[in-house]
């Protein structure tokens, strides 16, 4: 499927932009995670990577739609 990914913090630097169009096999959050690892291996060096769908943290089994707002959440460090 095709999707647009918002990238924040260090993932913005790794993906090379705040919003990136991305095409992948499968339609689950886990499929997206695998595709990202393949195309941007540096992501594997992060302490963690959560994926948010429509402003909520989503687990790898979550099904994606093309209209979903998808965001990469590297380790947070607010405060």
């Amino acid at each position: 499927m095709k999707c647009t990914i918002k990238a924040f913090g260090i993932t913005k630097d790794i993906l090379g932009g705040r919003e990136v169009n991305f095409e992948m096999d499968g339609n689950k959050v886990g499929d997206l995670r695998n595709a990202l690892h393949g195309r941007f291996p540096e992501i594997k060096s992060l302490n963690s990577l959560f994926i948010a769908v429509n402003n909520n943290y989503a687990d790898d089994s979550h099904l994606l739609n093309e209209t979903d707002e998808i965001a990469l959440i590297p380790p947070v460090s607010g405060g």
Partner: protein
Amino acid sequence: MIKITEKAIDVQKVIDTASSLGAGAVNVFIGTVRNTAHQKNVVWLEYEAYEAMAVAEIRKVIDEAAAKWGLLGWAVSHRIGTLKPGEVAVVVAVSAPHRKESFDACQYIIDNVKAKAPIWKKEVFEDGEEWVDARPMATAHDN
């Protein structure tokens, strides 16, 4: 009130928003930018937020705390953009009938906001910059 803002935070205003006539206790946590990290001088910090989700996550944390400790008022304000040492990055204020609840609720909120809200900071040193806590090699630290 939950606010993500590029403007300097008015601490007194956050406190006033959280206050309540029925409350005997207000607890306030203020997170400020330290002038050193990893034994190096911090020149400035860059904060960014996934704003809509940050507000939603902070709201969940506050709802939990308000129910658990019977809060009478609360306010959270988080700054984004460029911050210099000494500037205020985050303020959490809560009011409760008694002081123990005010301390416990405020600490719960800041601990969980820091753990869950999608907000990131990059430390800019004289000789480089680094997204805080992003990679395992970075020395663990916290405020």
